[in-house]
């Protein structure tokens, strides 16, 4: 709920406020990097941890396959499905 409200507020604010406030280059630069760092951190956390423990398991294989799929320019659904399939396979054999 909180997320919905906050994300909507941002979208609405953007529609409403005048342009020049946020057009500072430094701000734009930071804003361009925010999604990169957060998404990257999420990849690390989701793949290599359980609660507050680091670990390498079947998910790492899935991520590796996803990386390979992206390098081969596979579309998004293929990336996700191939990662899930390879991870599930390893999960069953360990």
């Amino acid at each position, binding site marked *: 709920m909180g997320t*919905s409200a906050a994300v909507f507020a941002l979208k609405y604010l953007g529609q409403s406020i005048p342009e020049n406030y946020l057009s500072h280059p430094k701000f734009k630069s930071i804003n361009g990097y925010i999604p990169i760092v957060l998404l990257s951190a*999420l990849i690390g956390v*989701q793949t290599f941890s359980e609660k507050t423990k680091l670990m390498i398991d079947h998910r790492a294989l899935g991520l590796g396959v996803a990386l390979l799929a992206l390098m081969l320019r596979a579309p998004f659904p293929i990336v996700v499905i191939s990662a899930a399939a390879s991870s599930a396979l390893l999960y069953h054999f360990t």
Partner: protein
Amino acid sequence: MSATPRPPSYRGQTFRDSLSVSLTVGSYGAAFGAASIAAGFSVVQTSLLSLLTFSGASQFAVIGVIGAGGSAISAIATATLLGFRNGLYGLRMAPLLKVRGLSRVLAAHVTIDESTGVALSQESRGEEAMRSGFWLTGIGVFIFWNLFTLAGAFGAQAMGNPAAWGLDAAVPAAFLGLVWPRLVTNTDRFISLAAVALALVLIPISPAGLPVIATAGLAVVIGLRKKDSIPHE
């Protein structure tokens, strides 16, 4: 999505652009629906996230952080930072749409990567085409995203143990798919790897959820150091 130069033509083309983007992107909603169930959310919660938040990366972040045991606060903070760019899209779209009142609320809700992208790609066809591209894509993605979310959620619920179906790996793979197109320059790639490293170092020594949001500091530091060139948006 990327603008290939097209001859000045009729409405049908704008409609087709909008529809194909809506269907393609909307279908990713199935991945979100499935991942959300895997992270422990109910079907209703999953659907509400898609209906009300309606911002792919932010939604994945919420289930990612909460699923990893993080607090609601860190989930909201991460999702909000990720949703920030929608506000910037709004800045770009507002002068074009010129809407007030309820329509502005509606326009704000469907201001996302895709609606903004399609609107901008119609530039050569004039403002009318840009406006219809925005609305058709925004509303189209909204409809398909929510339908596919529901389908993915029910599908995952029927499957049972998420790890047995690889759903626990599908989430980071989805993040990788989302970040991949943004890694254009060497700096981008360096920052991405640095963020992964920082998060991993923080995992054993900080409460869940914090390692992710802490990497925002990395973006600020590097963004401030950067002199002139503006990264892609």
